[in-house]
């Protein structure tokens, strides 16, 4: 009794069941599964049957095909199914489980197999059944076939290779593998292939190898697949099976042959030596395949007019691996592939499966060009197929070849774009990927139109992928800047929540460079902002632009867009709404606050209103915002004379120039590991560096207004520290002089070194090469080396050609990070060719002085 109560506690509610499981019999359960295929055509309708009627129908048919069902098992299933509520069902199962445990404890009484079968059903319903594990082990060791059968089934369901109990059956499997009955052997083989652990595989590999040479094809086919499982688990056992695998190719039985092909495929994929060895078998495989393709109708293996598609597909896959990057093997199979590709009837799935595999093989081996054309045409035909599955397959394969045969795929563009409108998300996803791959400079406008329509209708899970795809395509092929900006804005308005974080700085960078479009952009963004403030990224860009180009917005003159009269109050209202909206993220508020501040120099009348807005945030709960507000307040009061200079428009940023790329900021983030991490996501680019400037300024004049260490914000387009220094140079009373020294002078080439100290440990060195000779210097490259403890980062050079007679120069920036503050040394090697002659020279720069502004590197030529 006690144990029973314990049982009750162990039975838990299965996780995956719906809340109410009362299994009221549905009509559907009684409908023949085969109906769908066999009966539907005849127009028969199935009348619902009760469980009892179903039972009668089944019993009428006698026991000739189905052996006597285990009555007790079916009884239990019926009782469980009759439960009306979840609770009732749990109660029944608790009772049954207690019963099953009791049976197990009693030992051998002939009921054990039924009990285990019951337990397996309970297990399938999602209830715990681990207590049956040992019973499986016991039943497997039984001498009766019926018990062995259910025992092995239970082992496959209840045991997994991580459990100790699975080790206990190794010996039983070993014994059964040499049993006199093939059906017992089969059970053992099946279990080994399903759940054999690596250890088990090592123990039993010799037995399997022996069975590969058995005379019985029923056992042989199972042994081959067991061997496959063993190789997957323990790859080094592959060599053991290689010789027998070769001889299995002569087999006539399709099952064995199929197994052998799978085994050889597995061996070849894991071992290049074996692959070479089996390349010799290509003619044999071609022969087998030819036999299949040309054979007369055999009902045993025929599927919808295709002779054994299962085997054909496996052979084609093996041929693909054998012919990959090998001309001899590829030549040997070219004819066959052409034959299969032209003669296979693709009206049914089986035929399409074979054709699909053939196309993959043609594309993967060194096939003739004619054959490749044939393959792409087959895929094109698939694309027009009514069956969605075939269309999906077609696009999956076109995706694989779009890089190599771009033009061939381009021909099907129209159909692919149409598939974007398909209802099925799998097909949509494929079509999207393919469409993105097909965008080119020629079709960018029309393709983008389609993609933008798709973006507005596509399922949410595809939206961010679509957006980033559109950004990439627009960046690569945009016909004009205005078009580019419009496209990105369109994406932001439709899917602003699903774009990646770096979109905002990228777009801002794009807008700054397009100086002629500032007015247009700011108007457009202002309108978008007024309409909708829920799309965070859009709002951020809009705030930034309003802050920067607010004067243009207020002027109300714009050539490319119908101007609207915007008053100062309107703009401030809009920004205030953003600041106060609950939808705005802290970062967005930061953008808005800085924009408001920036407007203070761009508007004339409402400066007091701005002051009050800013001062409100001096007590904001968000630390970042508060800090900004306090700083801005200080700018209004103590440093009002500098406000105009500080809040000037940001200089145009060039994305490709050193110091402005994403990668660089990444590197800089690493360099400053002790700074607060939050800074990274925290503040927008422009305001951030603005703040940095400001803090530097405050620091320089020794005010106590520094609540926390200056956050260095490094979102992608933030100006590098170098620029910040430049800005400071303008603002500070003492500007930092840069020292330049010539380190090399030979053949008319001179190399100057310019060196700025940035922080304690970081030094920026600029190398400037010029050419005073009569001819151009070409292939000019610089390499630099520093002591191990110093990190060196070289930016891209401005070019590799120096024009003659000092008409131009090549500059390259080198960032040095010297964390241990060792004495800096640098070796620079340059190579160039002058009138076809190559030169190479190395100079060593021995000492960099510790203070940067009197940097006079001492040079020793090597």
């Amino acid at each position: 009794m006690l144990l029973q109560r314990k049982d009750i506690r162990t039975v838990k509610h299965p996780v995956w069941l719906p809340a109410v499981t009362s299994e009221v019999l549905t009509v559907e359960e009684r409908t023949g599964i085969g109906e769908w295929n066999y009966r539907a055509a005849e127009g028969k309708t199935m009348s619902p049957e009760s469980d009892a009627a179903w039972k009668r129908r089944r019993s009428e048919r006698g026991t000739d095909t189905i052996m006597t069902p285990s009555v007790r098992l079916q009884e239990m299933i019926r009782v469980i199914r009759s439960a009306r509520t979840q609770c009732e069902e749990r109660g029944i199962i608790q009772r049954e489980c207690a019963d099953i445990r009791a049976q197990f404890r009693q030992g051998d009484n002939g009921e054990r197999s039924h009990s285990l079968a019951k337990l397996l059903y309970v297990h399938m319903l999602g209830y715990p059944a681990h207590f049956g594990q040992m019973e499986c082990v016991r039943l497997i060791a039984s001498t009766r076939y019926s018990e062995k059968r259910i025992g092995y089934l239970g082992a496959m369901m209840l045991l997994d290779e991580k459990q100790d109990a699975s080790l206990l059956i190794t010996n039983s499997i070993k014994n059964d593998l040499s049993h006199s009955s093939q059906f017992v052997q089969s059970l053992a083989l099946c279990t080994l292939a399903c759940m054999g652990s690596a250890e088990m595989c090592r123990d039993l590999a010799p037995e399997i190898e022996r069975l590969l040479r058995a005379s019985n094809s029923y056992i042989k086919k199972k042994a081959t697949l067991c061997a496959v499982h063993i190789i997957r688990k323990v790859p080094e056992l592959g060599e053991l099976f290689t010789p027998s695998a070769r001889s299995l190719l002569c087999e006539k039985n399709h099952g064995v042959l199929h197994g052998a092909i799978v085994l050889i495929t597995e061996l070849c994929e894991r071992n290049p030596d074996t692959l070479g060895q089996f390349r010799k078998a290509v003619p044999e495989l071609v022969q087998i395949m030819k036999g299949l393709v040309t054979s007369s109708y055999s009902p045993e293996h025929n599927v919808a007019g295709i002779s054994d598609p299962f085997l054909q597909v496996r052979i084609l896959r093996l041929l693909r691996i054998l012919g990959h990057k090998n001309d001899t093997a590829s030549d040997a199979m070219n004819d066959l592939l052409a034959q299969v590709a032209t003669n296979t009837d693709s009206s049914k799935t089986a035929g399409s499966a074979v054709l699909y595999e053939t196309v993959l093989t043609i594309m993967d081996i060194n096939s003739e060009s004619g054959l490749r054309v044939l393959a792409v045409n087959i895929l094109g035909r698939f694309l027009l197929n009514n069956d969605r599955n075939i269309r999906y397959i077609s696009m999956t394969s076109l995706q694989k070849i779009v890089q190599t045969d771009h033009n061939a795929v381009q021909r099907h563009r129209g159909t692919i774009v149409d598939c974007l409108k398909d209802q099925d998300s799998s097909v949509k996803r494929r079509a999207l990927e393919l469409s993105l791959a097909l965008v080119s400079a020629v079709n960018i406008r029309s393709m983008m139109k389609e993609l933008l329509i798709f973006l507005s209708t596509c399922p949410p899970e595809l939206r961010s992928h679509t957006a980033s795809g559109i950004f990439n395509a627009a960046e690569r092929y945009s016909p004009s800047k205005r078009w580019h900006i419009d496209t990105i804005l369109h994406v932001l308005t439709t899917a602003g929540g699903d774009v990646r974080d770096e979109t905002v700085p990228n777009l801002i960078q794009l807008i700054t460079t397009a100086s002629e479009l500032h007015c247009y952009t700011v108007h457009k963004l202002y309108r978008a902002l007024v309409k909708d403030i829920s799309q965070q990224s859009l709002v951020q860009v809009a705030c930034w632009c309003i802050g920067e180009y607010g004067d243009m917005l207020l002027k109300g003159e714009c050539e490319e867009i119908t101007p609207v009269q915007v008053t100062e109050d309107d703009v401030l209202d809009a920004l205030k709404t953003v600041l106060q909206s609950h939808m705005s993220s802290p970062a967005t508020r930061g953008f808005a606050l800085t924009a408001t501040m920036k407007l203070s120099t761009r508007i004339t009348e409402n400066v007091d209103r701005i002051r009050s807005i800013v001062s409100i945030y001096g007590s904001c709960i968000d630390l970042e915002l508060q800090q900004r507000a306090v700083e801005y307040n200080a700018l209004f009061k103590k440093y009002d004379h500098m406000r105009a200079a500080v809040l000037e428009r940001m200089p145009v940023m060039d994305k490709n120039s050193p110091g402005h790329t994403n990668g660089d900021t990444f590197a800089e983030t690493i360099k400053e590991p002790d700074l607060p991490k939050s800074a990274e996501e925290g503040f927008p680019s422009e305001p951030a560096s603005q703040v940095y400037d400001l803090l530097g300024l405050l620091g320089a004049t020794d005010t106590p207004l520094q609540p926390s260490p200056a956050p260095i914000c490094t979102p992608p387009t933030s100006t590098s520290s170098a620029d910040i220094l430049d800005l400071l140079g303008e603002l500070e009373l003492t500007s930092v002089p840069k020292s330049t020294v010539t380190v090399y002078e030979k053949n008319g080439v001179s190399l100057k070194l310019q060196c700025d100290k940035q922080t304690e440990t970081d030094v920026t060195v600029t190398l400037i090469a010029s050419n005073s000779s009569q001819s151009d210097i070409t292939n000019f490259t610089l390499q630099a080396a520093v002591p191990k403890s110093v990190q060196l980062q070289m930016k891209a050079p401005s070019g590799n050609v120096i024009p003659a007679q000092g008409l131009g120069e090549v500059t390259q920036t080198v960032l040095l990070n010297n964390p241990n503050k060792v004495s800096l040394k640098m070796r620079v090697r340059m190579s160039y060719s002058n009138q076809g002659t190559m030169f190479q020279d190395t100079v060593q720069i021995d000492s960099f002085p510790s203070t940067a502004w009197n940097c006079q590197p001492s040079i020793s030529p090597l």
Partner: protein
Amino acid sequence: MDFTVAESNTHVRTVFFNKTRDFVGYLHGRSRRLATILPLLFQQTRPRNKMQFMLLFSRQGKLRLQKWYAPLSDTQKKKISREVIQTVLARKPKMCSFLEWRDLKIVYKRYASLYFCCAVEDQENELITLEIIHRYVELLDKYFGSVCELDIIFNFEKAYYILDEFILGGEAQETSKKNVLKAIEQADMLQEEAETPRSVLEEIGLT
């Protein structure tokens, strides 16, 4: 002192940076999901064409049969099957039979009230998987004689035996329908021989 060559292709680094960041984000967000899928990911690295599992479930989401060819714990199996069943059931009838789920491909087909669903790795031919599912349905149909869901519920162990006779370790083992049915029939007869004398004895004992 090693010479460092200038990186002219900053784009590569940008891409790398983005990828890294995305991946880190992915790890943070999906660590729990990853935990369930990692065994699948690292089990095999190169040849990836094995069937990982097969599920049969009803339109109400009730599991009718499950066969796992990948070594997973019970919890993982439950989690995966719940997720797969939900995903498949959410699809509309006219949709295509394939979907990408984690790093696997799910191939499913509905026969009357029952969904047959296979998860295969990415190198596998989806169409032949569909044929394998269909072949299994045909086998069930031949064995039970116009099979319906109730047959599979009440004789679930038979359904397993047929599956084990058709698919072994995730690969089809027999391409002839006749051979599979013959083997099942013979095995059934063997089982009956083993059981019959016992039930007679029991009857004697009872009466």
